[in-house]
């Protein structure tokens, strides 16, 4: 019994949307960061599904690239977050208000 | 002629002069002034010799110099002069040295001289360019020095005035740039090579009637702001009032002419049909400008602002003459551009000289200057009468030609425009009366009259004002062939015919009438011959009938 491919794609789309909306709505930088991960993983799911449907190895290979890049982003992102919130209690984006016009 | 020519040299000399000035240390003001003046005088001499070398029998562009420049866009460095631009070039060449000598910037002579020379290059480049792209470059380039001159050496509200001047003109040019590119691409029709050569573009005339009208409007937008036509004129009084004297002289004398020149050179020759169709709109704006400028001038309390508004009115006359689309009107318009440059330039110089002494431009503050400054009063009178258009002075010739040229085709506009002449007499004489008549008191009584240097500066202007008023023929001889060619071009491409009276005056009408009489006579004769033939035929038939009946 196999599940129709579009189910996976719809799930991925839903996860991606959750991530995107979360990033735009939530104020905690760490949560925002997690939302980015959510989006990237939704993309990975999409890629794997398409690779399976197309019977093409390319999509799956791309997933590895995404994983590596996501890891690199995590390293840099966490570094920046630590640097900025080292002397603060919570990591809230609303505290970032020095730069405005 | 190819490569380097006198015209290229005329554009480059001020640029080189500006560069040299920029390299001289700030403290050597005398050297800077000498270099600046030398460059300006050199160009002036070149422009005058150009007028003498100009072939008055030819309507073509002369002294053409051409060099390829940006081949990718079809742009070439193309300069030339014809009867329409010749005297504007001469005017530029004469006014700049006068403005440099006749005024004192009071601070930062170096920057001032450099900007003035750059401005001269921009003006000359605009008048000489036969390539639309090159024209546009110079047309926009003139903004920059003028912006810095007003903003750096002007009076109390100079920043506001200079920004307004810059942005208004840039706004107009935005339309022109799009229109220009559209014209070039649509003329090429995707097959012919792109060209910005206005001679070629005028010949191609490939735009659909509707499109041409839009592109014409885009061009007109830029020129209408520059002229300035009513309702785009609001930058002008501010810019004139706040500019230093030399700035006002050049602005009124030369820069405004870029607008009217653009209308003649590009509006008429590139879009003849659209110009014919839309002429009523422009004429109306011109006439509104004449009356509005005159009325505003009457109400001004500031002497410089008064002269500025009088410019709006005078420029309205030039546009009226241009869009009358008759040879006389157009010749008058071209001549009046020069006249206005001379008389308004001189007026601004005189007002500047008064300001140098009294540090005010308020008419109410000035009184009875005739007593303390008799020479100034005389010169002011002459210049003022030239501006009013008194017969015997230059203003009369131009205005008269414009009015008779436009009366033929655009009677009512001309009639309303004539009222502007009367109003001009009103506001200028009234201002003169308030400023110069009466017994001076206080500071007004102790003013020193014009210095020798100031008299020397005014002398060439006064000479030209009188000369052009008494004997304009050599100038008109050079203007007319080109104007005639332009009107013929408009007639051919615009599906329009100017009345004969506008070409040669009464003689033309007489010829026309004679021709008509001959034609009518011939027609009558033919008619009677025809009747005779009919009668004979009928007779023959009757005779035949009678014969057959008899058989």
């Amino acid at each position, binding site marked *: 019994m196999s599940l129709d491919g579009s189910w996976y794609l719809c799930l991925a789309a839903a996860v991606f949307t959750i991530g995107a909306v979360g990033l735009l709505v939530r104020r905690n930088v760490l949560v925002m960061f997690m939302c980015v991960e959510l989006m990237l993983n939704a993309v990975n799911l999409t890629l794997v599904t398409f690779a399976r449907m197309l019977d093409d190895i390319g999509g799956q290979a791309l997933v590895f690239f995404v994983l590596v890049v996501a890891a690199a982003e995590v390293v840099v992102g966490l570094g*920046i977050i630590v640097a900025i919130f080292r002397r603060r209690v919570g990591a809230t984006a609303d505290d970032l208000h020095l730069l405005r016009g | 002629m190819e490569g380097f020519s006198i015209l290229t040299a005329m554009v480059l000399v001020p640029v080189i002069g500006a560069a040299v000035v920029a390299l001289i240390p700030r403290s050597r003001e005398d050297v800077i002034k000498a270099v600046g003046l030398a460059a300006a005088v050199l160009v002036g001499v070149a422009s005058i010799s150009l007028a003498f070398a100009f072939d008055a029998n030819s309507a073509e562009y002369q002294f053409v110099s051409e060099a390829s420049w940006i081949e990718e866009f079809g742009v070439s460095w193309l300069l030339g002069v014809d009867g329409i631009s010749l005297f504007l070039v001469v005017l530029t060449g004469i006014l700049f040295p006068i403005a440099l000598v006749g005024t004192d910037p009071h601070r930062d002579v170096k920057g001032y001289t450099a900007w003035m020379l750059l401005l001269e290059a921009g003006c000359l480049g605009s008048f000489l360019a036969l390539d639309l792209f090159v024209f546009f470059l110079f047309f926009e380039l003139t903004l920059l020095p003028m912006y810095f001159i007003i903003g750096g050496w002007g009076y109390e509200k100079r920043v506001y005035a200079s920004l307004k001047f810059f942005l208004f003109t840039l706004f107009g040019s935005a339309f022109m740039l799009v229109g220009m590119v559209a014209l070039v691409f649509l003329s090429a029709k995707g097959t012919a090579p792109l060209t910005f050569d206005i001679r070629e573009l005028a010949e191609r005339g490939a735009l659909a009637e509707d499109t041409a009208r839009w592109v014409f409007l885009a061009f007109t937008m830029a020129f209408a702001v520059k002229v300035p036509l009513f309702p785009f004129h609001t930058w002008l009084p501010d810019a004139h009032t706040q500019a230093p004297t030399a700035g006002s002289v050049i602005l009124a004398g030369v820069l405004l002419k870029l607008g009217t020149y653009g209308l003649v050179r590009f509006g008429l020759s590139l879009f003849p049909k659209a110009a014919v169709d839309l002429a009523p709109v422009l004429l109306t704006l011109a006439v509104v400008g004449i009356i509005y400028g005159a009325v505003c001038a009457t109400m001004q309390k500031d002497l410089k602002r008064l002269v500025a508004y009088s410019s709006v009115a005078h420029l309205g006359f030039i546009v009226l003459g241009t869009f009358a689309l008759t040879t006389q009107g157009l010749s008058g318009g071209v001549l009046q551009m020069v006249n206005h440059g001379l008389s308004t330039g001189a007026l601004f110089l005189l007002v500047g000289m008064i300001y140098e002494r009294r540090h005010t431009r308020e008419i109410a503050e000035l009184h009875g200057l005739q007593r303390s400054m008799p020479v100034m009063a005389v010169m002011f009178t002459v210049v003022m009468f030239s501006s009013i258009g008194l017969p015997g002075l230059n203003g009369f010739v131009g205005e008269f030609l414009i009015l008779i040229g436009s009366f033929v085709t655009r009677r009512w506009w001309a009639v309303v425009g004539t009222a502007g002449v009367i109003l001009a007499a009103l506001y200028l004489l009234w201002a003169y009366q308030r400023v110069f008549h009466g017994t001076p008191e206080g500071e007004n009584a102790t003013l020193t009259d014009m210095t020798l240097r100031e008299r020397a500066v005014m002398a060439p202007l006064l000479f030209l004002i009188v000369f052009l008023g008494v004997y304009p023929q050599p100038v008109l001889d050079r203007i007319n062939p080109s104007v005639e060619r332009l009107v013929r071009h408009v007639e051919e491409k615009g599906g329009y015919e100017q009345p004969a009276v506008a070409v040669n005056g009464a003689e033309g009408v007489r010829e026309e009438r004679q021709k008509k009489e001959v034609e009518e006579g011939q027609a009558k004769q033919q008619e009677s011959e025809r009747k005779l033939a009919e009668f004979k035929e009928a007779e023959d038939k009757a005779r035949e009938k009678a014969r057959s009946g008899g058989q």
Partner: protein
Amino acid sequence: MNGLPMNGLPMNGLLVAQAGQPEGLAPLELPNVEYSAMAPHLILIGGALVLLVWVAMVRRRPPWAWAAFTVAVGLASLGASWLMWLDVGRNGPRTAVADAVVVDGYSIFFMVLVSVIVVLGALMGESFLKREDIRGPEFYVLMLLSSSGAMFMASANDLVITFLGLEILSIALYVLAGLDNRRMESREAAIKYFVLGAFSSAVFLYGVALVYGATGSTNLGEIVGYLQSSVAPANGVLLAGVALLLVGFGFKVAAVPFHTWTPDVYQGAPSPVTGFMAAGAKAAGFAGLLRVFFATFDTLKLDWQPIVWVLAVATLLVGSVLAIVQEDIKRVLAYSSISHAGFVLIGLQAANEKGLAGSLYYLLTYAFMVLGSFTVVTLVGRKGDARHDLDAYRGLSARRPALALAFTVLLLAQAGIPFTTGFLAKFYVISAAVEGRSYSLALIGMLSSVVAAFFYLRITVLMYMSTDEEEAEEARTEPLAIPRSMAVVLAVSVAFTVAFGLLPAPVIDFARDATLLI
């Protein structure tokens, strides 16, 4: 592969087909890697690595040596790019590394541009780092890496490579934005840039995934093949993918409505980094955008042209109007860079060869103008990189006439004054729009440049028309030093802007020849 499961078709057929294939894997085939096709990229990356090792091995080294090394690396990559340009001119464009990388006029154009930015950026950074007492070679290393990412975006022939280039570019830039980590603003800029950058990468990647699903490949050449062979190529998945790609690129090039990060990040990042961002990152974003849309999705242009039209208009208007109300020079330049992005989008919207050439010309000339401008901003910012309010420019002409003149030239060039490259750049894209019959867009572009002229002039007003004694006194007490490396950057950018404004043929021909896409 016709009809997607997304459209409701079951995928059983596919699974059956898969089951029918023989068992076992084919031997793994490694692509032939032609390193010469990526020589400039590799020179930059190699330079970055050497610099890292060098710093680790030799403790005490004058920082100017790092800058000199970076300049040398930039020049080497410039030389390599030039050799490749000659080679492509002789042998024609080609693809390399299993069709993933392309060597054509377009990619080399950006290699040249990025190399120049590296050289100028290193010179700008040197005296800044010294003044701010920021030790370590991070600036140079990250700039070199980031630049190699920019080059990869330009030479990518596969969306995967585009994505990798984008990430190499961006991740290094996140750190660069927060380089001056003693300043709170700099750190804040880093985090803002990072969050929105990561978001845009994810969006971009989802676009890649959808395009892959719809066309069966991420290779640009194969996508073109698919689009040309299929009868009705435009379906929902493909169009959604293309739209998401546009959004992803839109973030990078700061097109409205994806521009919100720009003013904050430009303001907060160290001034030389902002200059690098405005010149390099924008060029890289457009390098990817233009290739993907011009070359690959050309057949879909009736679908994306209207969207780009809207983006361009919004970008032009928002950029130039909001710049007027800013009080901080870096924010002014940020909004101005947004409006310049609008002009490049005009070239994209035209979707003709002139539009592409115009966009390239615009990016090249803008890079010089903006690098020069940010050099001035860095200088006037003084120690602490904090004096960026517009009042800091009051009376600059009296204090430093040459600096004021240079800044005026650069600003007026951005406003599009004749006889500068800035005017020709605007003219180029406007003529492309007119050729493509987008008259209204051309007019909106020109009118927005009139609005933009206002705030450029406003700065010149401050510099030239508001001097009084008090400020002259302040000028004497607080001298404004111009280090030699900064002077070089300024001289180069001003000379380029004016010289090629007067004799434009070489650069225009360069941009035109760069439209040689594979």
